[in-house]
């Protein structure tokens, strides 16, 4: 069931993005930035956690989950450190994704030549 939900949710997010892209002058850069903000907004009242519970991996794939993980890590740290925990825990959950993206893109940029 999670597989079907993943397909529908992830596809739906991409569908919204494609409709925005086709009908406005916004570029993919605008849309991804917007979706990150939307993800952070949805998690500020734990809505995104509920989505993840019912959708599973499909909710972690779209860029909205990046905003969700940022605020989620930040709020987890506020439990023990108070307000400054927002600054300390910001990258706790997304660190693996950002670090992996940096390492892989750097290594591949050294190894491969651009094709066009």
């Amino acid at each position, binding site marked *: 069931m*999670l*597989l079907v939900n*993943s*397909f529908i949710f*992830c*596809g*739906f*997010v*991409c*569908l919204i*993005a*494609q*409709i925005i*892209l*086709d*009908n406005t002058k916004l570029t*993919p*850069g605008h*849309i*991804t*930035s917007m979706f*990150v*903000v939307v*993800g952070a*907004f949805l*998690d*500020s009242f734990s809505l995104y956690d509920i989505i993840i519970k019912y959708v*599973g*991996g*499909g909710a*972690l*794939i*779209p*860029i909205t989950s*990046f*905003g969700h993980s*940022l*605020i989620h890590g*930040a*709020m987890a740290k*506020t*439990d023990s450190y108070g*307000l400054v925990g927002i*600054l300390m825990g*910001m990258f706790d959950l997304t660190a*693996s*994704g950002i670090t*992996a*993206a*940096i390492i*892989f*893109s*750097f290594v*591949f*940029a050294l190894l*491969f*030549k*651009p*094709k*066009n």
Partner: protein
Amino acid sequence: MVIKMKDNLYNRIADFHKPKETKVKNAVVAFISGGVVGLLGEGIIEVLCGIVHMSRADAQVFMSVILIFIASLATALGFFDKLVSKFRCGLLIPITGFAHSMTSAALDYRKEGPIYGIGSNIFKLAGSVILYGVVAAWFFGMIRYFIGGGL
């Protein structure tokens, strides 16, 4: 006269129908390709949980790393750009788009040297995602901290 009117009418009808049709087609393609990426993510999580006996939290981290690896490699090999121009948002909105933007920026500015080429430009496209994500998360986190008091 009749031909001219017909031409006019034809053009108007063509203009009315053409963009709309590609828009619908683009939307359906984005839905299906995005859905397949989501399905792949959940599938990887379930395979890792079932075969390697990872906890679900660990499997989620590995899943995003695996997808980032695949997207980076495909971008470096050159065929991810073709897929992106075909599927558009279906591949740009998932985490694969983040990896794709970083790898393609690094590859494009490779010839300008390691510092002012790769170093300065690797976050050219992904930087805005990180910037607005952090600012939004900080802003909403402050609101939530003062209203709800943490989690």
